[in-house]
């Protein structure tokens, strides 16, 4: 399936409703990056609803990489006993 990406801040209730979730099929990534199907009218309408900003795959990947790098740095700075209960955030490659 072909995808496209946008950035939109999840404000909470109503950001994605059940109908949109069922018909579009979202995947959320760090940095408020959302993956949606390409050539999908419902997805385009949703991006308009949430005032999202379309990004190329490369732009979206750069945002995700920066967020993951921050999360990894935060994890690296944790005390060792706290690291034992979690795993280091892993890099994400967008499809």
């Amino acid at each position, binding site marked *: 399936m072909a995808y496209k990406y946008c950035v939109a801040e*999840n*404000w*909470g*209730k*109503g*950001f*994605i*409703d*059940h*109908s*949109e*979730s*069922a*018909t579009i*099929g*979202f*995947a*959320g*990534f*760090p*940095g408020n990056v959302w993956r949606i199907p390409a050539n999908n009218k419902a997805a385009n309408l949703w991006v308009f609803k949430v005032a999202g900003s379309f990004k190329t795959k490369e732009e979206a990947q750069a945002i*995700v990489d920066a*967020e*993951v790098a*921050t*999360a990894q740095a*935060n994890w690296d700075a*944790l*005390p060792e*006993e*706290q690291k034992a*209960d*979690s*795993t280091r*955030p*892993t890099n*994400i490659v967008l499809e």
Partner: protein
Amino acid sequence: MTTYYETKGQKIQVLATDPSETIEGQVWYNSTSNTLKVYKSFTDAWATGGNLATARSYLAGAGTQTAGLAFGGNPPATGATEEYDGTSWSPGGTMGTARLILAGAGIQTAALAIGGQLGPPTDAPTNVTEEYNGSTWSPGGNLGTARKSLAGAGTQTAALAFGGFSPPITAATEEYDGSAWTTGGNLGTARFYLAGCGTQTAGLAFGGTPTSTGTEEYNGTSWTAGGNLGTGRYQLAGCGTQTAGLAFGGSTADRNLTEKYDGTSWTTTGSMNNGAKVLAGAGTQTEGLAAGGNSPGGITTATEEFNAAPFIAAATVTQS
């Protein structure tokens, strides 16, 4: 020649009960409920809910989708509690013992916080139990075995605690009667970071570490094997009952993964939009709630609401 159907259209069926077999778009009038109904198929789906005020992971949940509770979690350990009304979270009373990786049970106005891990400097597993009355937490009876990353089920006066890490990994089950914990039957497989749901006499345990697909059913005395999760995972959340359970999130390649249990087997259903691990779960199989956790970008405030597909969408007809 013009026909009746071309000028008047088809008549709507008048039925005393909803038809047992329907097709997409079928319309009928239910003369018992006086409602005009149309069949539309839906898919089980997650929608975003109101965000937590405080991003947190390793927390616990209780209650329902419209009256939920999230408490404890992070690191470092917190005692903070938030109450959900179906739209937004608001502050609740703070637990007397700050902790994370704890278990929850009960409802928003009668919840239990069970065990978990204390904050620095000890970072030790705890046996502390606290009871919530809708505004404040008060001490309850202590667990017999202090432990973290355990699971809970049931109500404030008839709860279950099972599994966890004490250390070592434990299979121990304990039953709460509203004042004290007593020993129950051991899980067949010791595990931690598992999820649970159901009641004290009909409990369900699933997933956990070591990465497990295992499901076990409790009858008030002993655990027996149930159907395996489709995907093994730990640090997941769950809600519902022994015969209608829901498993979501967790440490797995697809944190959005959601499965539902019918008392025999698990089937994949609508995926979360922005799944997490070490999150809180509450509610039922048809109206679930997920809050907080650790998403790939870090600790999150995100809340999602699961709703099972309604069979029939109905439009009420009124006379004017």
